């Protein structure tokens, strides 16, 4: 557990630094799509919810897991769709 935690904390920290550098390069032009994109991506919590909804740990776990699956799926599907809708609209002046 401790070593797992240690690895987890390292990952958390490194991803934070990486995120800082990647995201400072995103121009303000795309800040709204950035928000919906990170939102869709963090819908990856779906994978944890799927296991809890399907593992048969008891009624409560299954019910809460199912609601969590529905919420995360909404974010994933809705987030990616609206991000793409926005990104499709950004065009340069035709030459």
């Amino acid at each position, binding site marked *: *557990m401790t070593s797992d935690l240690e690895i987890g904390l390292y990952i958390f920290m490194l991803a934070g630094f990486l995120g800082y550098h990647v995201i400072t390069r995103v121009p303000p032009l795309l800040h709204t799509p950035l*928000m919906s994109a*990170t939102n869709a991506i963090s819908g990856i919590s779906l994978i*944890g919810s799927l296991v809890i909804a399907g593992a048969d740990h008891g009624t409560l776990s299954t019910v809460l*897991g199912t609601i969590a699956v529905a919420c995360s799926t909404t974010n994933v*599907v809705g987030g990616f769709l609206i*991000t793409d809708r926005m990104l499709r609209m950004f065009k340069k002046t035709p030459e």
Partner: protein
Amino acid sequence: MSPLSLCYIVSACLFILGLKGLSSPRTARLGMFGAEGAMALAVIGTLFHHEIINYTWLAIGLLIGSIVGGTIGLRVPMTAVPQRTAFSHALGALAATLIGVAEFERHGAEAGKVLMTALGFEVVIGGLTFTGSLMAAAKLQELIRGQPITYRGQNYVNMSILGVIVVCLVTLVFSPGNAFLFYTMVGLALIFGLQMVIPIGAADMPVVIALLNSYAGLADASMGFVLMNKIQIITGSLDGTSGFLLSLLMCRAMNRSAMNVLFGAFGKVDPEAMAAAAAAQAKGTVRSIQADETSVLLDGARKVIIVPGYGMAVSQAQHPVAEFANQLGKRGIDVKYAIHPVAGRMPGHMNVLLAEANVPYDKLYEMEQINPYFGEADLVLVIGANDVTNPAARSNRASPLYGMPILEVDRGKAIIVLKRSMNPGFAGVENELYYNPKTMMLFGDAKESMNKLLAAMKTGH
């Protein structure tokens, strides 16, 4: 290493590349396709997870989520993107909280200190983000008045709630079986979320949304720690950093600290500001203009700058605005758009609305880029933007806006301001720009005014 772990590693990599793609509009879509593929890979891979034995409920959850998400994703109008974003933070946080509760019930007294700490963070941050985001979404959708709601001792109440939450969490780490404490903590976190957003006015929403985005990310990362799910720790951390960075940018654009936004309740009108406003009023008169008189101003104009604000979003005026700019372009007039970082209700809001109206993105200029051009502009058209154009931010030390970086509209040769009425903006401060002798006010709904301008321009020549 299991095939599933390999899936997750590939997915994590593609997610990061997806965000990297967003550094340019040219690569953004491609990056997002990669991220979508990564998500599909991770989800499909997980369906083969050995612990999953019953697929009924999980299928129902996926189906409901796809239908709701699909409807939202395809139907939500671009003007409603801020509330959709707030709503999705609420959903993400709710998912984290519920999983936290489920895991608490499963492990109960056997939860070790590490697990209990992670669980605590997950339900507390998740809970407050859930109610806070719902409140923000309701304010943005105007289900609740956008004005800040404040009462005496508000900060003390909030601090006490937060204090009790911390005590519960610490106690739980040492005696993890205490369900009463756990649910008290969850309940207080839910209340704290409401308390946190209630005092914040609609104009501060860009900061709040970004901050809630960050919290949603942290809740997600804590869930990653609870389930020891590394890819989720990564995405949670990325989401948290992104939201935090955006809220810092927004704060800087308003010349305020994050503390000040959260504990300050900006919308309050203080006596000093009222006095300054009265002084400004005494200084000059407001000149108003009719739409058909404006075409004269366009005669001989070579450079025009358009400054859009939330008023444009409210009246959905982006299409006539773009049409107007097209007409000017046909006459050989150079048109640029000036976008203040906090124009609108979320970071980048104006850019999306103008892109929707087919305005090419190379016409959209950030504040630092456009400010040097205002001096050369023959005409500046301000459409529903207020506080971000107030010269008092530069010159008047008494103004609550003092020090905020603004668009230097007052340096233009002539200025037309489209505005519904003389009501002050969200900061409750009179805009000195309106008393400038170069400024003419065109009162009315932004969309109607733009349509009249268009008509006037067509008949004028």
